[in-house]
């Protein structure tokens, strides 16, 4: 590995700006770190260069641990957004700087300088001052300067940010060619997805200090794993879908015995097919809608279609909120599509989906369940639930009074009298996840995870990982074997626990502590909760009857209630991932 990051964390005034990032970059690979401003991508790049110290983790370059070395000792090439050329030096002196520092002889310096100027196609500029060059030329010189000492790694921080569109594209090509020619391992930071697609062998998407996903440009675009990546890389309509025997449907299924499994579907604007009638579409029918807006955009036409109010439900409500109107769907069509079926504003159309992608996210939506509309609304706006919904870009539906089955997605009930019974009812009536939220509790800083059986482990870890990706909380997994179990089984239990930990890290990207606490489940959970003011429990089971209900009642209906999330893994459920 040319560059290896291991659980790198950087905090500013206690707030993590780079949070637990692990990443490997192969020799000769071009990796683009993509993210909105403030996502921590520049800080991470500076940490690799040694310009910023990190609070936790390890940085290695070519197998050499450089975590505690200064920028000077790391031998990397760094290109800054604003070029950072030495203005009082000529171009030649700028390029030779790294060589002069290393005491290279004048003749060798000159030869290297000519070589580099040729590489960036600026021969003969040796005696100019930086101020006499254009912005694009200055950035080329900055690249040449960063390469002078033959670094093993080239790091670029938004190198095209200060340039206009045309020069940007030209320079982009130059950099790609140079990188290919020298086969130098490169990390480039940008917020421009077009740039990322044009340059990257692999793209790492960062958000709120975390490296959310990392993969080839086409796999990230076609098969994103998170809501953020699916909407940040290109445009996407995120809709709630329901798994049926005949594939994913977009209308809540009202018949049948089982609660339908809710999923989050990504529908790209270019995969939407418009037609006059439902049966004309050769694609998966989504619903009916009305053309609300048409924007001519040259090669593609952009439309917004207002879906009928009984149509598909967006994952995160837009600005309209739940105004009773249907959701807005983004659609883009090529010129041939426009010719085949011209539309105008106000026209009613049938909407089909040529291709959808189901996000492997275990949490699709929340439903606040309460006896009255007011209390349901209050629960929806309770600090913890509101924060989770906002951070996870997830919809919170409301259900007042009981139904005959649990709502799809994750039902949420408020703690307090009767909440234990409500929890039990939901788990008995088809809920696969359930959360109990104390009305005044805010975001937890400590999450205790426990599974009552091995069947529920995978689903529980997936839900916990999804939750913890959006919380600044530490996680601990408790293994609680019966105190009476013989001593000679301890080693096997310990091994089992370590397996859980490595599975959590490799399969779900969840970094958690693990502890073995022989004893009673209720007692041990209680002890762990008591040590933290804002603790939360994630409890997994394949059999709701095995939950220690008496203890749960004291947690949910006692004087200091805690948030509890229960994952009910179904025994004969097909795998959620596609």
């Amino acid at each position, binding site marked *: 590995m040319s560059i290896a990051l291991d659980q790198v964390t950087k905090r500013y005034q206690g707030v993590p700006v780079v949070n637990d990032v692990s990443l490997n970059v192969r020799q000769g690979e071009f990796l683009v770190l993509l993210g909105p401003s403030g996502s921590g991508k520049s800080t991470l790049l500076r940490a690799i*260069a*040694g*310009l910023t110290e990190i609070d936790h983790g390890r940085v290695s370059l070519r197998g050499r641990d450089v975590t505690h070395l*200064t*920028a*000077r000792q*790391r*031998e*990397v*090439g*760094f290109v*800054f957004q*604003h070029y*950072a*050329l*030495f*203005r*009082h*030096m000529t171009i030649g002196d700028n390029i030779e*700087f*790294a060589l002069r*520092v*290393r005491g290279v002889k004048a003749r060798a310096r000159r030869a290297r300088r000519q070589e580099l100027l040729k590489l960036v196609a600026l021969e003969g500029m040796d005696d100019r*001052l*930086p*101020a*006499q060059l254009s*912005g694009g030329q200055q950035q080329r010189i*900055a690249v040449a*300067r*960063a390469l*002078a*000492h033959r670094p093993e790694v080239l790091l670029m921080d938004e190198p095209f940010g*200060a340039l206009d569109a045309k020069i940007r594209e030209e320079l982009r090509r130059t950099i790609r060619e140079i990188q290919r020619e020298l086969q130098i391992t490169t990390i480039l930071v940008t917020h421009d997805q077009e740039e990322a697609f044009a340059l990257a062998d692999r793209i790492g998407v960062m958000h709120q200090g975390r490296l959310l996903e990392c993969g080839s440009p086409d796999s990230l675009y076609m098969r994103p794993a998170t809501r953020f990546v699916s909407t940040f890389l290109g445009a996407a309509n995120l809709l709630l879908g329901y798994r049926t025997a005949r594939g994913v449907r977009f209308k809540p299924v009202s018949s049948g015995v089982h609660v339908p499994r809710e999923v989050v579907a990504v529908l790209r604007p270019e995969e939407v097919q418009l037609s006059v009638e439902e049966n004309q579409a050769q694609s998966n029918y989504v619903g009916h809608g009305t053309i609300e807006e048409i924007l001519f955009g040259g090669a593609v036409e952009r439309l917004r279609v207002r879906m009928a109010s009984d149509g598909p439900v967006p994952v995160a409500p837009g600005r309209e909120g739940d105004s009773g109107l249907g959701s807005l769907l983004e659609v883009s069509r090529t010129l041939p599509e426009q010719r085949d079926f011209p539309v105008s504003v106000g026209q009613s159309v049938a909407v089909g989906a040529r291709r959808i992608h189901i996000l492997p996210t275990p949490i699709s939506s929340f439903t606040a369940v309460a006896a009255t509309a007011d209390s349901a609304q209050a629960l929806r706006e309770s600090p913890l639930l509101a924060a989770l919904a906002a951070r996870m870009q997830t919809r919170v539906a409301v259900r007042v009074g009981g139904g005959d089955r649990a709502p799809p997605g994750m039902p949420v009930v408020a703690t307090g009298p009767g909440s234990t019974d409500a929890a039990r009812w939901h788990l008995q009536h088809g809920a696969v996840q359930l959360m109990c939220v104390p009305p005044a509790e805010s975001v937890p800083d400590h999450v205790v995870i426990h599974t009552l059986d091995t069947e529920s482990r995978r689903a529980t870890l997936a839900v916990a990982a999804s939750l913890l990706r959006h919380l600044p909380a530490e996680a601990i997994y408790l293994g609680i074997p019966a105190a009476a179990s013989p001593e000679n089984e301890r080693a096997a239990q310990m091994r089992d626990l370590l397996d859980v930990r490595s599975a959590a890290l490799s399969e779900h990207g969840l970094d958690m502590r693990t502890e073995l606490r022989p004893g009673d489940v209720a007692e041990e959970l209680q002890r762990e909760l008591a040590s933290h003011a804002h603790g939360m429990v994630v409890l997994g089971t394949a059999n709701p009857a095995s939950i220690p209900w008496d203890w749960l009642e004291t947690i949910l209906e006692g004087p200091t209630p805690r948030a509890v999330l229960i994952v009910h893994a179904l025994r004969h459920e097909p795998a959620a991932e596609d």
Partner: protein
Amino acid sequence: MSWLRQPSVLPGFGLTLGFTVFFLSGLVLLPLAALIFKTTAMTWHEFVQTVLDERAIASYRLSFGAALIAATVNAVFGFIVAWTLVRYDFPGRRLVDALIDLPFALPTAVSGIALAAVFAPTGWLGIRLQEMAGVQVAYTWLGVVVALILIGLPFVVRSVQPALVEAQRDLEEAAETLGAGPFYVFRRIIFPAVLPALVTGFTMAFARGIGEYGSVVFISGNLPLKTEITPLLIVIKLEQFDYNGAAALGFVMLLASFAMLLTINLVQGWSRRRHVGAGN
């Protein structure tokens, strides 16, 4: 006269140019011309004799020498002060920043008297310096240097400060990633970037030091041939009604000051040319 009609935010180029010319003529050029005219009343021989008088030569040596030393000291310490104020944040930074300008605002005689009181052989610092190092500051050329350091410090600090602010951190970081150590970065990156401003500050402190009068006369002791500065000599000549002699010395000072200011302008012009178009 098309050059009279130049577009500008405010109208009235003719009016403002007229005012500029009048202002400069009335307040700067006319008195200076009168000074030069006054010296023409002397014969060449008289002029040379006055200007190259033993006492005058000694006063030039002190004035220019002390100003040079003071400006050099200020260049070093002013740079450090400016560096501290720009690069570090500490409690009371704004207060220190405001204190720098105090020598500008204070009547120079006040600072002179204050210095004399502190550095006099019986003064609070004077006694200790005498005892510990055997050095007498007040009433020697050292006193003159001390007074000029006080007066010149703000010039250096205020010239260097904006240049240091402008010298971007990423330049230092760039040098660091290229393998340069802290001292190398300072010598090759920071110092050259700040040098033009430092030269400007040095020249201004130097020019001010040559012309300084009020703060010096109280601490220098004013011994002819020893601690007598040129401006004082001019005042003495005036008190003896030797207007022509005073004018001749004034003429020499005028030439020296003009040379200084011309240098400043040339230095500034040179540094601006180096940085032209580099604003992006």
